[in-house]
């Protein structure tokens, strides 16, 4: 299979920022919370490449650690949503009947809420913080995975090879994991990548509103909110934090987009 230039570019656009963020402990030049109040609100310079914030903290270091936090929340929330929602969608398609009806109705109800509103509601109940933000995003994305996987899974469960496996005495778990799930990997891969991208944006929005990661922990959304207060004195913190959010979300979205083309040849022409 030839790797298209776009797919390669998308891979790199995810890999490079992700490695920098994950390796923040080794890459970041400063401690993200250590303050140097004398050197506050500086623009980019040799000792602080992206300048310093209102407490004299190094913007570059905060962005690297903040990106790591964003990626952690995104991965945790989308991973949980995939396990829970994807699992429910798969089971619903396999067992059908009342189980399917109840599960999908519940998913319809969750799906009916506007994304941010549901996330804000969950955070309001559980209290602000990065863990609750992750739970909130997981709740929001669970019905998306359930609905997404149920459709193709219904078709696959009707296939002859599934009936064959059942006739050969395979257990339900074996049929689902060995025969059904592998056929859904493409859909899962694409959607996971796209949802990771939006999870980064939702987490940043929640933190921006003060409902996600709490200070003094570094968070991209929080940096935007803090930078907004000193925007006219020194816009650097807010500007660079936004660029970081954009870079993370852009790479993941592009990757999902390029993967979708690759895995669905019907779309490639369009």
């Amino acid at each position, binding site marked *: 299979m030839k790797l298209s230039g776009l797919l390669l570019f998308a891979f790199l656009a995810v890999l490079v920022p992700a490695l920098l963020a994950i390796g923040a402990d080794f890459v970041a030049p400063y401690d993200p919370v250590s303050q140097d109040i004398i050197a506050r609100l500086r623009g980019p310079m040799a000792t602080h490449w992206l300048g310093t914030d209102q407490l004299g903290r190094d913007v570059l270091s905060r962005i690297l650690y903040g990106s790591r936090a964003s990626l952690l929340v995104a991965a945790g929330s989308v991973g949980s949503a995939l396990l829970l929602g994807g699992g429910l969608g798969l089971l619903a398609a396999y067992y059908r009947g009342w189980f399917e009806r109840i599960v999908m109705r519940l998913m319809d109800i969750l799906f009916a809420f506007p994304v941010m509103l549901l996330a804000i509601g969950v955070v309001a*109940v559980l209290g602000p913080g990065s863990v609750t933000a992750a739970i909130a995003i997981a709740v929001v994305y669970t019905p998306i995975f359930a609905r997404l996987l149920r459709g193709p899974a219904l078709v696959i469960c009707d296939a002859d090879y599934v009936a064959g496996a059942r006739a050969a005495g395979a257990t339900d778990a074996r049929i689902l994991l060995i025969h059904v799930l592998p056929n859904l990997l493409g859909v899962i891969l694409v959607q996971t990548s796209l949802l990771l991208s939006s999870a980064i944006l939702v987490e940043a929005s929640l933190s*921006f509103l003060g409902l996600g990661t709490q200070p003094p922990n570094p968070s991209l959304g929080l940096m935007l909110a803090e930078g907004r207060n000193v925007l006219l004195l020194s816009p650097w913190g807010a500007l660079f934090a936004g660029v970081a959010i954009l870079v993370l979300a852009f790479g993941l979205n592009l990757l999902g987009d390029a993967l979708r083309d690759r895995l669905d040849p019907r779309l490639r022409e369009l």
Partner: protein
Amino acid sequence: MIRIVLARLVDLGFVLIGISALVFCMIRFIPGDAVAIMLGANTEVTPDRVAALRTHLGLDQPLLVQYGRWAWAALHGDLGTSLWTGRPVVAEIALHIWPTVQLTVMALGLGAGLSVPAGCMMARLRGGTADTLLRLGSVAGLTIPSFWLGIVMILALATLAPSLQLLGYVPFFDDPLGNIARLLLPAICLALPILANLSRLVRSALLESLGQDYIRTARAKGLGEARVLYRHALANAMIPFVTSLGIMTGYLLGGAIVVEQVFAIPGLGRLILGAISERNYPLLQAVILLVTAGFVVVNFAVDLLYRVIDPRLRG
């Protein structure tokens, strides 16, 4: 057709009941004593006050009785009273809903309105470099954080035209021009992802329908290119477009909450955040219920519209 509408109405009713039940349960999901937490936000917590508030909120009743009363009152337009001001929450919401609704409508109009011509233009550009650039552009449009874009706009405005005062909000009927001017930038921030999403959707739907037999027929009978494109190809491309509009409304309502904060617009976003910091759960419940119900009904209407547009789905 009537049977389908009835079946969809039953679905709608079910979803509305589910939403209201979930929103009703919000207070009950709070870890710890919700009543003490609510009180703690504003006053000293004493056993008397806890008991009084519990009775006031009806929390001493059986759960189903509570839900029944709450839902019945909600259906009659009574969503309870704000915990701290004692005013009906409906009145609080009425004070804050218009900026948000107007912002949402403006952004939807901008994004959806521009996406059709943009999509048509993009459909004409096909092949190698143009495809890649369009794709990169639309992914960037989708992933630019709208609140960051807002901050950049404010910064640019403060630098380029410091005399312009474009933050905040004035009611439309007090100052129509000032109202539009103040909401224009936030609406553009919100509209950009929609424009990116919908224009690409129009483009691919257009390209797909251009490959169909009826387009060949239209060309074969000698129709001009413009008529082929707009009358035959675009009409079919509108079907996925209309479906997306409903989903976009939900995105917009959520996005508006965040963008309002950037531009200091006193809309539902401010109301919600205020309610959270004061632990004013009755108010929060009411806002979430109302907005979500509105969103569901819009989607229901879109679904019906979709069936009117596409005769194949009428059967």
